[in-house]
């Protein structure tokens, strides 16, 4: 990912408020909670730009129920969406193992853009195939890392300046109630996937929980963390453990820099999702709103000796900005994050997940260092 500071939304505000005679058609592959509680509420802010044409889900009941909310067509067929000429943008919201095939098929169908939920794929090879398909077909690809599009983060990056190598310690702390609570603030979810309560499990299952935590939760912020790192390929996991009932604690170094990630899902009402960067002469803090709720952007602060710059909140969250950017790229604007950045983001996340798993199921505690 490039430094986010260069890229404020390029779409004039007045354009968003004005009626458009060229609505961009949207087709969803997957109609689960993310489609229902994230994308449809975000699109409801942009009805002058987008029209949902089709909703595909493996469950016909879900497809029908979700499509009915926007007057779209329901289907259980991926091809049905891809062959629909009224669908300009394909949104891949299926389980991650389907992302590669569906995103590539959407490129081959010559759609105007593909928005793929995170993670882009489950392997670097699959992600590379997607990126190649985009290059070959010229179809723009976006990944739904909403924090990377959050106006609070973008304002932070502009104020902070060049990120690479600029902070010695980067800390991401996530303390949240279970997702369900926030989904219900955003919508009424149809056919919610059953929640499997985590339980004490053998090492491999614990490692899978950790991987799920990294690729499902930490993945929101890993692209933001990566832009601070001088050598993101040089990961050494210093500490890792899973936390009950669900969470993780990971400390890793990348060259001389150190990253702390922790997440804890609890029943307390107060969510807190923060990213902090510590430099010799300043401290940066970005406080994100929880996923799902339409609570506007992150707020951020850059503190230096006896001075603090506060930015935000802005009206829209990262999801709405993500969709505004989809509109921009379907109308000829360049991508904010190049495919090579998206591939590097996924490579970083998968590399961290692999190394953290190895550290967890190998020696119980990694050795300390001097």
């Amino acid at each position: 990912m490039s430094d986010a500071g260069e890229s404020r939304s390029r779409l004039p505000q007045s354009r968003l408020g004005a009626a458009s005679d060229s609505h961009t058609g949207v087709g969803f592959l997957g109609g689960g909670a993310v489609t229902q509680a994230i994308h449809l509420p975000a699109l409801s802010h942009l009805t002058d730009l987008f029209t949902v044409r089709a909703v595909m889900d493996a469950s016909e009941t879900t497809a029908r129920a979700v499509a009915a909310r926007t007057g779209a067509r329901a289907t259980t067929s991926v091809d049905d969406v891809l062959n629909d000429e009224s669908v300009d943008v394909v949104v891949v919201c299926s389980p991650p193992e389907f992302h590669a095939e569906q995103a590539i098929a959407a490129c081959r169908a010559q759609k105007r853009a593909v928005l793929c939920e995170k993670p882009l794929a489950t392997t670097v090879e699959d992600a590379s195939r997607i990126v190649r398909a985009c290059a070959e077909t010229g179809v723009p690809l976006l990944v739904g890392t909403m924090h990377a599009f959050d106006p609070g983060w973008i304002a932070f990056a502009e104020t902070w300046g060049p990120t690479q190598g600029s902070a010695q310690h980067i800390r991401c702390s996530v303390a949240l109630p279970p997702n369900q609570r926030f989904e219900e603030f955003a919508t009424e979810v149809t056919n919610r996937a059953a929640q499997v309560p985590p339980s004490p499990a053998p090492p491999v299952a614990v490692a899978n929980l950790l991987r799920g935590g990294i690729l499902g939760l930490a993945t929101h912020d890993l692209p933001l963390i990566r832009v601070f790192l001088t050598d993101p390929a040089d990961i050494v996991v210093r500490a890792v453990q899973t936390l009950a009932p669900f969470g993780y604690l990971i400390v890793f170094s990348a060259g001389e820099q150190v990253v702390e990630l922790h997440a804890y899902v609890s029943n307390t009402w107060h969510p807190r999702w923060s990213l902090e960067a510590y430099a010799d002469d300043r401290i940066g803090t970005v406080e994100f709103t929880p996923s799902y709720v339409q609570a506007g952007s992150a707020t951020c602060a850059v503190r230096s000796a006896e001075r603090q710059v506060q930015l935000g909140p802005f009206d829209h969250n990262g999801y709405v900005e993500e969709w505004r950017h989809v509109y921009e790229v379907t109308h000829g604007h360049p991508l904010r994050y190049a495919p090579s950045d998206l591939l590097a983001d996924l490579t970083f996340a998968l590399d961290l997940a692999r190394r953290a798993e190895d550290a967890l199921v190998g020696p119980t505690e990694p050795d300390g260092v001097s």
Partner: protein
Amino acid sequence: MTSLRVRASARAMRSGAIAPVVASLPVSLRPEETTTVSTELLAVDGGVDWPQHLTDAVRQVKGVLMIHPSPVLPDEVPLASSVPVVIDYRFASNPAVSTAASQFHGWPAEALVEVSALVREPTDQDRLLLDQLAILRRLGLPLVDLIRLTWTSHGYYLRGDAQSRTPVLLSSHVTSGAPPQLTVRGLATDVAVELTVPDPSTARPAVLTRTSDEGATTYPTIWETSHRAAWRRLHAAVTKATPVTDLTDLRADLCVAVHALPDR
């Protein structure tokens, strides 16, 4: 109330901000310019040579305040003191810590505790680690083991286990971006507790918040520095014989810290 005569070395006067503290306790304490037989309380700076200074001090006075100690070998801590010795930690002596301790009582193993701090100079980090261990002990979460993960001139990360088996992450961030402060944050299934302790260079109050599914409670502010609270505790130990275990506790913390500190 008994008024006790106080003296300190020049170094201790600076590190413990003793003049304003004594001035803020004019009934309990009186400053003395020179050491005399009538000196009752002596302040010792916690520089690396503090064990010798402490050993000398306890022979002369009724009570000793030791300011922000540096790490030494556990066996170097003099335990058999004939007079009370109170340690003035930069953060752990803050009066809000005792209120916070009640919130951490019975803290579950299935939880996370983090203790992070901002400091100005890399050389502050050795003492900071003892401060962090002391605050955990005073919160009822003494560590039983500690592993150094990283330690550089920019900060450190250490991973420990509390006696309750709760995982604890300790960190230090060396920066001039904000005044020094220490934050303890506990995350458990049904409750979160956060205590932010400011640097004692001002009497800016600590902030203690407890959050559960029913809401959040912020506890009353106490406009008192760690230094002043430590002097009050020493005064009470001398005049009312309230028990202090600071040196014993420090020795126990040093036993945990000694293998986690970088080689010098």
